[in-house]
């Protein structure tokens, strides 16, 4: 499936990654899923992993709260975003191990504090790997 989001949201993710550097940022992609997944807004979430700067965790309670907040607006959770400080925007073995199917996992690379490339990944149904998915970035009109 294609993931669609505005250039402003892409910038927001990149900024979040830069702000969190050298730790990882994380948050939820909220939007509508039809023929494509359309991200409408980002919901930043507190990273519950404090023991290791190279890990992030969106806790189930936090996710339930986000979902409850979205329900009124008709939006749902489409996936999440997180940053890879000084590491490629590709899933680590741990990312794949922990991934849910169907969700889009946007990863932004942050090199020495500056956001670099960004890509979105989806888990294979057999959990063997994650593949990049098409990301359509809409520029503001």
């Amino acid at each position, binding site marked *: 499936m294609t993931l669609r989001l505005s250039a402003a949201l892409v910038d927001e993710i990149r900024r979040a990654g830069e702000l969190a550097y050298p730790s*990882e940022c*994380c948050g*939820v992609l909220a939007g509508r*899923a039809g023929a494509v997944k359309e991200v409408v807004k980002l919901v930043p979430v507190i990273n519950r*992993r404090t023991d*290791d700067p*190279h*890990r*992030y*965790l*969106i*806790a*189930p*309670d936090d*996710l*339930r709260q986000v979902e409850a907040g979205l329900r009124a607006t008709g939006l*749902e*959770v*489409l996936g*999440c975003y*997180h940053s*890879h*400080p*000084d*590491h*490629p925007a*590709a*899933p*680590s*073995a*741990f*990312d794949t191990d*922990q*991934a*849910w*199917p*169907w*969700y889009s*996992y946007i990863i932004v690379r942050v*090199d020495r504090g500056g956001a670099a490339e960004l890509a979105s990944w989806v888990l294979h*149904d*057999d*959990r063997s790997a994650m593949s990049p998915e098409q990301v359509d970035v809409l520029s503001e009109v």
Partner: protein
Amino acid sequence: MSVTVAIPTPLRPFTAGHDSIELAGDTVGQVLDGLLAAHTGLKRHLVQEDGRLRNFVSLYLNETDIRHLASTATPVRPGDVLTIVPSIAGGSPATADTKAGLSHTEMLRYSRHLLLPEVGVSGQRKLKAARVLTVGAGGLGSPLSLYLAAAGVGTIGIVDFDVVDLTNLQRQIVHGTSTLGRSKLDSAEERLTDLNPNVRIERHETRLTSQNALEILGEYDIVVDGTDNFPTRYLVNDACVLLGKPNVYGSIFRFEGQASLFYAAQGPCYRCLYSEPPPPGLVPSCAEGGVLGVLPGIIGSIQALETIKWIIGAGSSLLGRLLLFDALKLRFRELELRKDPACPLCGPHPSIHELIDYEAFCGIGAEPAYNGPEITAEELQREMGEKGDLVLIDVREPHEWDIVHIEGARLIPLNQLPERVAELDGHAEIVTHCHHGARSMKALEILKGAGFGRVRSLAGGIDAWAERVDTGMARY
């Protein structure tokens, strides 16, 4: 009445799109078993091999996490709602546990290493903990970085600021046709991460200079020199000596290669071997003189070998030995290298205590010996049309002439020119050309010295002609 199981969006592809499913059962565990039996595709996402829930799967009975109740033994009543709630986790590979043991997949990946007593688990862990810098992602850097990544070197830094060009692919095997035009760092990182995702690639997209070398090299345990020019080679050597780091050296030219290990604390450095660079222009680069594509594969692999041996501490290294390889004769020779007591860098009385200007040291940037009049490719085309008597002399080698040549040009290789000037008409208007313009300028100097007055050199050589005038002509 039964229990309602609420299915989160990511799992609905496995429940035929249903967002809730009615199931019977007395405990959470029974309901869950019923769910997995009815929708087998859910199983691998929710439970581990041993049947326990995956750590990122939470179950809420009504509003309470079952971990706060009696877990899967928690009794359920008709009308209860059991909600599957994801927790979302991940992270980059650079975790604090890189120095810890090897994961099961790593054990399998490095199985052929682990079978060697000289490597074993401890050697493999040393490789994982090692930080290696490769200077250059070109001919030598390609096999070198591929083998280091495959071997499981934990962190590989790469210094390069070039982009992948079609002429690189004859030997630079870390790059590919699909990465033409992209930065060599991007291209190499993609390939190396694909080869071994456990490896952390650190990018240094910059020219190595006297200003940044100590900072960049200082972050690594061992430096591998894959450069193609003298200023950078001296810079890498000097920085390694000043920082007390080993320097795995390799160089290639046409059909011949060299390799050694320089480590001033225990043996010679590059300056003990070559105290001064050759005069500029004497030793052509690969771009000028050519190189057999497989040669950097052999020398770069030897550098990878020496690096790995150094890390795991196996065998005897090339320290104090210069290995010479002749590809045409297929012969390896070895020279003994000793530390030069008069070495200005690593000797007992050094005169060099900091990095210097290496371009100046290698005589680069100095005024060229001769600077005669030039003609652009466009001007040449116009004048060839207007003047029938313009003489165009191609001073390249015959095998280059065979690749491409300009119609109407006359081949007189530069080294034959002094004895063949008599063949030329002293009153004619002459234009000399070569591949890129350097040899052509030398030809001009010879002709001027022989008394020819009306001579010019084609700026940029036949390459400029092929690029801007005869665009149907092949470039090389």
